[in-house]
């Protein structure tokens, strides 16, 4: 071994802290104008620790290697026509939703970390945010590359970025990141690095991606796990951020707790989309949403919050209001009944899938949800596949249609409302209503897609024009049931069953 090789700790110190400089002709406060704005108190930035002690030189080396591995698999996937090896064409719709709903968030995260990193006086935090910003840009790029292959063979992939900014259900993920990015830099870190990355993204990238592998989609599982290998670093950063803030000053504790409460609830509602993808959109299923929640939130999150208790941090508020028994069923039913207005196909679960759902949700599926699907099946058999004529009412905070039910009564839709400056605002839950109350001036500005349609800001006059002209959907190809869709017809032709 070379005698003068630096050890990891020394190298990290030299390549982060020692790169910082003092301000000689500018006031430090002017250089970091947002650092005190939220009320967070930092007494000593040098206490910031990156437990991986990753420096830029090592970062580039390992990221380059990850990319080489990833693109070799994309090439092999394309050259082998592997789009034909996925379980069935229904699966592809989970990927359409991923590209339109999730990948643009990677881009938002890239922007968010680039901006936020700039705002910190501590060089360790700046370097960590810079790396994460570059990671997030890599994620969006690799996801677009992976999914561009599907765009050659399936409908619904053509205009994901345009759709992300407009489509009714895509405002749910979009507004989540808009909310975080328009917050102060410390709230952004608690929101994204801790609440989202540490507490919740495992649910998106781990069981769902393992599910992609189980459905024959090697391209997706590979970009997913490649992204997640960066996430492991992001999660660690998220936990360090929290510990750092809590150790810096006791006045930070209530602020951090408030942000954890808010962003846990925002994240749990947002991830109902992933729950629906896992329970209904993966033909081969790895685990149910409820099981995934058990492993990745209750078990992992439980351990985490027990560890944080010594700082005076408790479990997020509203945790007992997360309805893992119900959310995936209620959301897929909403997508199914609004399937004329979705940029992906919807369907009734098969008999075998319903049996799987009964087994996974023994208390609820047969009692509340199977009868609906039996009715839908009967209507479809009579040539009357159900599509609702109404536009959904949206929650002002999370922007999800008001489709969730009361915690103590799954037959009663949950509605909350409040009046602010003479206007009435509607919410899906106590959590979303309370978040509004904390910052009403922020949320009264929400761009709610259904309101915008009714106000005439999305073209029209009819829903068809909104969908085709404003959203950019190819009606009759991107939307409606999988049965009889061009996707299904092409698939059957390729498989020689038509």
């Amino acid at each position: 071994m070379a005698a003068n090789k630096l050890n990891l700790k020394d190298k990290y110190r030299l390549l982060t802290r020692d790169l910082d400089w003092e301000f000689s002709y500018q006031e430090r406060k002017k250089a970091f104008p947002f650092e005190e704005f939220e009320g967070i108190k930092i007494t000593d930035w040098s206490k910031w620790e990156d437990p991986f002690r990753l420096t830029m030189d090592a970062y580039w080396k390992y990221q380059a290697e990850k990319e080489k591995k990833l693109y070799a698999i994309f090439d092999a996937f394309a050259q082998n026509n592997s789009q034909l090896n996925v379980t069935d064409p229904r699966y592809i719709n989970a990927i359409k939703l991923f590209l339109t709903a999730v990948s643009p968030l990677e881009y938002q995260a890239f922007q968010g970390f680039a901006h936020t990193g700039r705002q910190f006086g501590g060089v360790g935090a700046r370097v960590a945010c810079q790396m994460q910003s570059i990671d997030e840009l890599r994620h969006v790029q690799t996801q677009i590359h992976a999914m561009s292959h599907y765009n050659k063979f399936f409908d619904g992939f053509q205009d994901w970025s345009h759709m992300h900014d407009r489509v009714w259900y895509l405002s749910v993920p979009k507004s989540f990141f808009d909310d975080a990015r328009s917050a102060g830099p410390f709230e952004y870190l608690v929101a994204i690095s801790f609440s989202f990355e540490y507490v919740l993204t495992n649910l998106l990238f781990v069981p769902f991606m393992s599910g992609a592998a189980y459905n024959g989609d090697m391209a997706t599982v590979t970009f997913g796990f490649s992204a997640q290998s960066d996430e492991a670093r992001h999660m660690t950063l998220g936990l360090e951020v929290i510990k750092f803030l809590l150790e810096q000053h006791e006045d930070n504790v209530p602020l951090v707790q408030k942000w954890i409460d808010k962003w846990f609830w925002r994240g749990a509602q947002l991830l109902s989309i992933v729950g629906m993808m896992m329970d209904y959109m993966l033909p081969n299923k790895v685990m149910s949403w409820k099981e995934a929640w058990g492993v990745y939130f209750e078990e992992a999150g439980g351990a985490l919050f027990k560890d944080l208790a010594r700082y005076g941090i408790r479990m997020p508020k509203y945790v007992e209001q997360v309805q893992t028994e119900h959310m995936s069923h209620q959301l897929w039913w909403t997508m199914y009944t609004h399937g004329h207005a979705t940029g992906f196909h919807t369907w009734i679960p098969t008999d075998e899938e319903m049996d799987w759902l009964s087994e996974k949700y023994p208390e609820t599926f047969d009692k509340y949800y199977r009868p609906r699907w039996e009715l839908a099946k009967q209507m479809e058999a009579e040539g009357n596949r159900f599509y609702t004529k109404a536009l959904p009412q949206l929650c002002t905070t999370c922007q999800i249609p008001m489709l969730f039910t009361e915690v103590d009564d799954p037959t009663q839709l949950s509605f909350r409302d409040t009046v602010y400056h003479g206007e009435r605002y509607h919410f899906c839950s106590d959590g979303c209503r309370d978040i509004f109350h904390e910052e009403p001036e922020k949320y009264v500005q929400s761009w709610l897609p259904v309101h915008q349609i009714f106000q005439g800001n999305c073209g029209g006059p009819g829903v068809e024009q909104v969908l085709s002209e404003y959203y950019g959907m190819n009606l009759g190809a991107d939307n409606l049931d999988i049965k009889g869709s061009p996707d299904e017809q092409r698939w059957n032709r390729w498989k020689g069953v038509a």
Partner: protein
Amino acid sequence: MSKVYLALQDNDISRYIVEAIEEDNPGVTIIHNPAMIRIENEGTLVVNRETVEEKLGRDWDVQELHLNLITLGGNVDEDDERLSLSWNA
């Protein structure tokens, strides 16, 4: 004591890393999922450079773990010799 965990991509390198982890952490639980291997342990988990090098039959930098890592849970501490995960409560 809470469980710490590590998930690795199921590939050739990871199989040796898992062998090393099993050797250095008696009682560890290994769970195979499609395309991934999840490793759980009560309280702490350690990946030692020396043991991985022995299994792989070549030099191995602890930071190479990032190439195969999917996710982890626990407080991380990493240096030239090992990566360790732990919960304090």
